[in-house]
């Protein structure tokens, strides 16, 4: 039986008068892929930042491997963060560093490895993600797809137990989108990480999911499969399904 790695217990988060998450509960199991979906501005990124401890909830508990991160001090929180790898929406590469330095950064800062070992590890992962020959380039010189791959390489350097993908395919063309999904499947198979994907790319991203969490009006609804979402009786979820999946269905008809 799989173990819960992340749990939200009655989490509330508000900004000013706007409540983003209203006493929400969720469980993310080890080794599984969870897709977090929902209309824009409903709190998907806030949920991700809460998981990472970049934001603190107003009340409730967020457990990572059983430890409540909402009450942790900075040092303990940093220890927890070493379990995470994150691929940001805009890749968030340090733009003053080249590709090699960006990917080497976690090893240089977080480990005591020698420069030769770092070099060989970085070159190996760059080769794996088809980035050989681009080591000296700066983020501004890379295409969107390449930046995502460099971001993924950097996130995987410390072999995280949990990977978070924030809108991994936003802004990418269909070819690069498929490439990212392929890399996701390959790397997950190799590293065996638990993954959380925040995405708009519905319904394609559902193919990767073991469970889907839909955020709407401050509430979370968990579904075991895309079919379950389509059969949901919650009006807001029905509207969301019609808006997202309906559009795809129409475009298929047109083809």
């Amino acid at each position, binding site marked *: 039986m799989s173990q819960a790695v992340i749990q939200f217990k009655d989490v509330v988060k508000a900004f000013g008068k706007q409540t983003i998450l209203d006493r929400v509960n969720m469980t993310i199991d080890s080794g599984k892929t969870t897709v977090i979906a929902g209309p824009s501005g409903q709190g998907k990124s806030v949920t991700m930042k809460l998981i990472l401890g970049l934001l603190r909830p107003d009340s409730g508990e967020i457990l990572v491997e059983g430890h409540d991160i909402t009450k942790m001090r900075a040092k303990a929180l940093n220890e927890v*963060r070493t379990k995470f790898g994150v691929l940001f929406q805009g890749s*968030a590469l*340090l733009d003053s560093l080249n590709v090699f330095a960006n990917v080497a950064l976690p090893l240089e800062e977080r480990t005591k490895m020698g420069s030769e070992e770092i070099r060989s590890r970085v070159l190996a992962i760059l080769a794996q993600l088809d980035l050989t020959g681009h080591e000296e380039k700066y983020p501004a010189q890379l295409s969107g797809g390449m930046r995502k791959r460099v971001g993924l390489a950097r996130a995987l350097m410390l072999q995280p137990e949990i990977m978070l993908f924030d809108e991994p395919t936003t802004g990418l063309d269909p070819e690069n989108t498929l490439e990212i999904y392929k890399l996701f499947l390959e790397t997950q198979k190799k590293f065996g990480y638990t993954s959380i994907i925040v995405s708009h790319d519905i319904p394609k991203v559902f193919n990767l999911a073991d469970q889907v969490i839909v955020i709407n009006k401050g509430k979370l609804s968990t579904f075991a499969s895309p079919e379950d979402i389509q059969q949901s009786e919650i009006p807001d979820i029905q509207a969301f399904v019609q808006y997202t999946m309906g559009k795809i269905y129409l475009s298929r008809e047109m083809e």
Partner: protein
Amino acid sequence: MIRYLEKIGSNTLWILEDLGRMGSFLVLGLGGVFKRPFRFSAMIRQVRLIGADSFWVIFFIAGFTGMVLGLQGYYTLRKFGSEGALGSAVSLSLIRELGPVLTALMVTGRAGSAMCAEIGIMRNSEQLDALECMAIDPFRYLITPKFLATIISVPILTLIFNVVGIFGGYLAGCGLLGVNPGAYWSGMEQSVVNQDINMGIIKSFVFALVIVWVCAGRGYFVHRIRGAGFGAEGVSKVTTQAVVLSSIAILIWDYLLTAILL
């Protein structure tokens, strides 16, 4: 009326919140010195950017400031028949006031604005979040090297400003207007005491801290500053705000320190 009071209350709360944020930023920025591994090479790179690359700007401004002081001082002192005091007038003005203040204002405009924009862009493009997610302390990695580099660079630039300015005054006074060079140098030697030099150096350390605190801090909290907007516009507004705030703070601290140290 109630709406007016509400507005005053919310503005007061925001100011207190902002002061708290900036206070903790100062503590964490300086506290990064004690965190290991210390990024010595990053600090040296920042000394080059903030200090060495500002050399020629400081050199020219100091030279012309000294020359203007020489000219103005000469014509003012001539009215009292005391042109011989030009050396002491120029050197005291520079060492006590103009050297530290003008250097700090120049570093604010040149390096402080760049610092604020760089950190602001890093915040907006999630680069600072990425550092935190990799469990890399952004203060140790990014902010503390800038704190130390500014605190090292500004006093050195101030000393350079003073020396170049004094030579500028010499060039205008003695080279162009015929003041006796011996009187110029001996006037300086007799009037400038250690207390004046110490005052200038203390001021330059305080100004350095003000520059890096305000400029780096505003950039770091670009997303929290009310009314700044988002994206490139937000960074540009906050950078302008940082330069204005830092310049005003330098002049206020200048008055306070002069009142305390004189």
